[in-house]
């Protein structure tokens, strides 16, 4: 950035530059360094202000010089001077020429501005979210470690557990520091405020692993045990008004009193899921329970260690775990199959959003290319019209370089105009883009118009000037001297060929985008058509977590919640109510191993399934169909009868072809055996893209008084007033549990919408891009054919005078257009086959090379092309022979 700023000093006229250039550059560098010390944002602000000022002063200095030097010294750098002089003369001439053609200038600059602006806006997002390094020291040495166990029934990738952390930390020779952490939502309580917030429970080594320093106070150490918390900057501001006295205060965090020891800087967001505070932790040997795969691990490698080397070392180290920590035979077998998964932290944190963002930026790039082709075509036509002028210049001794320069100057002026407009356009577009963007894109709140946008717009403008200007310029450098003959005319085959190539290229690019958005549209429709097994209309969900002394065992928890269900059901306009531990679309369920009766506990027969709790009219409220048996009744919850309801997939997996009712299975939860009393329809728990899970629903209380207590189930309320019920619900909760915050209040319809927002956002943006490309392509074709028709007016006139019919003339012109479009479509289809692979992770229910979509979009492209050809064709067929011949 500094170098770019200093380079701007060259804009000043040479006299000024020779005398003051070094000083200006020195002042810029010193100012930048000082601003940089205050942070990236300050530096960006400084660079922008300084750059704007440099451009403004340089222009004023050229128009109205404040400095001239003695004549004697002017002879310096003669070569440089002559080039600059020549260019500035050409630029002045280009400005004059373009001013005489305002229509051409507006269309060319407008087209480019639209494309550059859109691309610059997208680039700004990509730059902040993906390219800006994470705010940690030596971030390239930070890695995320996870587990895989090929051949087992575990998911392809899963979390590690704390014995891995202890073992890695002691034995790894490639790791410098390592930390393990769990993230969850829990209650934060002060004297006057109580809320559920996102918190993380990392070992105290997290901060040294990341290389982070606190803004206030200190960071945890091993001696803090679990009694200290560190606040995020956001929490410090919103709850404590930025009061530095917060350090040392006692807060009620996750059910225990803990001391605030420090506050982090705003850029420290780890993990980047809205975590508000970090509880200190040190894992001791005595706490290890091997095989609870729930912890995430982040590590800092020693310099020069690759992820592959580390993965190999950690895999080997893990083999020693069963011997050191014990654990079940199942655990030992899993460790045999275990392979450590190591990937750069940045990839782990940003991986999910990278693909759609890059796709959108690429789409913007394609639109820019199409726009360039369009403008290049306009320039070609313009150059054509000036052949005579150029030929005269050539004849009286202008060199090739001179003619090229003249053409390039016009392209540069147009592109500069476009670049300036594009920045304004990006400023307008960016807020719209950010508002439409899906939640959960890290650092989206930091995205703003800045130096990156300006540099990108400038680079794009220069690149498009080259792309638009080069072909016409080369053409202009060898003007056809025969034009000097009286009445010289006729465009050569070669010249037409170049323009047709541009139009075919545009068509191809537009078709690639069209096919891409067509595939996303199909995916969107397929996802909308998925039956998730429940009905999202008119359902409100919320949670609250009572903390009361008398709620000490399973049955009393059950009674509390069943009473509250009755109160909810009594609200006016409520159809039915129920509760569940993990509401679909909002929270995942924890996988647990279950064993059908008769199988040995540690045998292969154990099946990994998901377990949740349900009560009230849960199934009816959600519209989950009961396929066999019965649902829970009050006694199941209050007496702990040990009954369970299972999903269809689970029944089919455990007892294929048999009646599941009355069968028993043993679960690891509470270590009890339950009896199946009902079978319900499958539901899609997390996302509409996944296959339905095998799911066991347990009642609120287990067969033993302490077998399970669930602290914060999600209530579901079916009501026509679902959108407006929240306030009444809060009041009800306040009556029975004033200590408990109500949180995760959503309508299921809203959650369903959110689950598709990533796709719909990408779809919308891509659709806009392809629409733009389609229009630009059509305009390009129209322009070229119009020009051809105008050029051939005489020929067409002669044909018609000799008896050609209007339809024949139309067919001739449309045929010419159709050949170009067909060639473009053929190339576009090939391009799309290669390009749609990048979309694969976003697609659902449709293959990347979907014949229907390819055919439909190609047909649409062809139709638009023919339409664009028909207008000039129609005009050609109305040529009056008399008029066209008289025009000679």
């Amino acid at each position, binding site marked *: 950035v500094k170098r770019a700023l200093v380079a701007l000093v060259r804009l000043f006229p040479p006299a000024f530059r020779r005398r*003051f250039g070094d*000083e*200006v550059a*020195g*002042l810029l560098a010193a100012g930048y360094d000082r601003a940089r010390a205050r942070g990236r944002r300050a530096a960006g602000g400084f660079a922008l202000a300084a750059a704007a*000022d*440099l451009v403004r*002063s340089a222009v004023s200095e050229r128009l109205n010089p404040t400095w001239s030097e003695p004549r004697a010294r002017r002879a310096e750098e003669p070569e440089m001077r002559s080039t600059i002089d020549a260019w500035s003369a050409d630029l002045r001439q280009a400005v004059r020429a373009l001013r005489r053609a305002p229509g051409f200038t507006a269309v060319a600059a407008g087209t480019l501005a639209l494309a550059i602006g859109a691309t610059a806006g997208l680039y700004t997002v990509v730059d902040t979210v993906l390219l800006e390094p994470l705010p940690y020291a030596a971030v390239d040495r930070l890695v995320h470690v996870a587990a895989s166990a090929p051949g087992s029934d575990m998911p392809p990738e899963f979390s590690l557990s704390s014995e891995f952390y202890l073992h890695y930390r002691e034995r790894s020779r490639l790791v410098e520091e390592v930390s393990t952490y769990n993230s969850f939502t829990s209650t934060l309580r002060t004297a006057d405020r109580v809320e559920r917030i996102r918190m993380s429970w990392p070992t105290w080594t997290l901060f040294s692993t990341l290389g982070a320093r606190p803004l206030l106070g200190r960071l945890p150490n091993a001696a803090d045990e679990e009694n200290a918390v560190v606040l995020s900057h956001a929490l410090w501001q919103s709850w404590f008004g930025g009061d530095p006295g917060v350090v040392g205060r006692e807060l009620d965090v996750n059910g225990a009193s803990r001391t605030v020891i420090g506050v982090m800087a705003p850029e420290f967001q780890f993990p980047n899921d809205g975590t508000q505070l970090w509880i200190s932790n040190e894992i001791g040997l005595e706490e290890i329970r091997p095989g609870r795969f729930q912890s995430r691990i982040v590590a800092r490698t020693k310099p020069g260690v690759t992820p592959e080397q580390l993965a190999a070392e950690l895999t080997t180290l893990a083999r020693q775990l069963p011997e050191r920590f014990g654990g079940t035979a199942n655990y030992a077998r899993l460790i045999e199959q275990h392979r450590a998964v190591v990937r750069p932290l940045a990839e782990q944190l940003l991986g999910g959003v990278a693909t759609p963002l890059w796709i959108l930026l690429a789409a913007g790039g394609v639109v820019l290319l199409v726009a360039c082709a369009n403008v290049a075509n306009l320039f070609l036509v313009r150059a054509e019209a000036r052949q005579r002028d150029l030929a005269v210049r050539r004849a009286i001794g202008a060199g090739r370089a001179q003619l090229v320069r003249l053409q390039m100057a016009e392209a540069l002026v147009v592109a500069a105009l476009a670049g300036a407009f594009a920045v304004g356009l990006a400023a307008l577009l960016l807020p719209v883009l950010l508002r439409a963007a899906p939640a959960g894109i890290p650092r989206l709140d930091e995205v703003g118009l800045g130096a990156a946008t300006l540099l990108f717009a400038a680079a794009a403008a220069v690149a498009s000037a080259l792309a638009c200007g080069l072909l016409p310029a080369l053409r202009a450098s060898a003007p056809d001297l025969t034009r000097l003959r009286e009445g010289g005319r006729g465009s050569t085959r070669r010249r037409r060929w170049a323009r047709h190539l541009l139009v075919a290229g545009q068509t191809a690019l537009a078709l690639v985008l069209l096919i891409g958005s067509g595939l996303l549209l199909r995916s969107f429709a397929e996802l909308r058509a998925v039956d998730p097994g429940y009905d999202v209309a008119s359902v409100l969900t919320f949670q609250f977590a009572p903390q009361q002394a008398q709620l000490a065992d399973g049955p009393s928890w059950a009674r509390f919640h069943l009473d509250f269900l009755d109160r909810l059901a009594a609200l006016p306009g409520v159809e039915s109510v129920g509760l569940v531990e993990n509401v679909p679309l909002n929270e995942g369920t924890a996988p647990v191993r279950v064993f059908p009766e008769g199988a040995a506990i540690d045998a292969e027969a154990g099946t990994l399934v998901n377990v949740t709790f349900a009560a009230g009219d849960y199934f009816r409220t959600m519209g989950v169909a009961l396929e066999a048996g019965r649902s829970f009744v009050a006694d199941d919850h209050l007496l702990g009868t040990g009954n369970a309801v299972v999903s269809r997939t689970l029944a089919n997996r455990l007892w294929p072809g048999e009646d599941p009712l009355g069968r028993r299975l043993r679960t690891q939860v509470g270590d009890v055996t339950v009896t199946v009393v009902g079978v319900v329809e499958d539901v899609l728990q997390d996302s509409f893209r996944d296959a339905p899970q095998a799911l066991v629903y347990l009642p609120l209380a287990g067969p033993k008084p302490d077998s399970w207590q669930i602290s914060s189930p999600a209530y579901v309320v079916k009501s026509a007033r679902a959108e407006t019920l929240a306030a009444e619900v809060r009041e009800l909760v306040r009556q029975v549990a004033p200590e408990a915050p109500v949180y995760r209040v959503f309508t299921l319809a809203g959650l369903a919408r959110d689950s598709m927002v990533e796709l719909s956002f990408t779809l919308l943006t891509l659709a806009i891009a392809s629409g733009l490309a389609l229009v630009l392509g059509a305009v390009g074709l129209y322009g070229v054919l119009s020009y051809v028709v105008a050029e051939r007016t005489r020929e067409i006139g002669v044909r018609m005078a000799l008896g050609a019919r209007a339809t024949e003339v139309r067919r001739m012109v449309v045929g010419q257009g159709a050949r170009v479009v067909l060639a473009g479509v053929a190339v576009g289809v090939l391009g799309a086959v290669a390009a749609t692979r990048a979309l694969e992770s976003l697609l659902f229910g449709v293959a990347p090379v979907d014949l229907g979509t390819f055919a439909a979009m190609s047909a649409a492209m062809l139709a638009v092309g023919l339409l664009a050809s028909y207008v000039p064709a129609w005009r050609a067929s109305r040529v009056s022979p008399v008029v066209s011949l008289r025009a000679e």
Partner: protein
Amino acid sequence: MAVGGSAALSRLEFHVLLALAGGPLHGYAVAEAVAAESGGALVPRAGSLYRVVARLVSSRLVAETAPPGEAPAHPGLARRYYALTAAGRRLLAEEAGRLKRSAAVAEERLTLSRGRS
């Protein structure tokens, strides 16, 4: 040209002259002094600042001068020092007097109008 015997000085020009009234300074120090003395109202950017310096030098209100004796010779960083000429000092004094008179008038009118209301 804006700078001349009786023509008004721009705010930045005035502040640059003001900064140099204390003795010879180099560009960076001028920029800092201007920012400080204008109470942050002026943030001189490199391009504008040196155009003003160029104009003041051209109209002989400011001249380049030898570095003050104690300034260490800085290798690689050629710092040029500027100082007021006699004409510059005169113009600054005139301008300061004019500002003082204007300020007095303003104060008087504001006091009057406050008294009236």
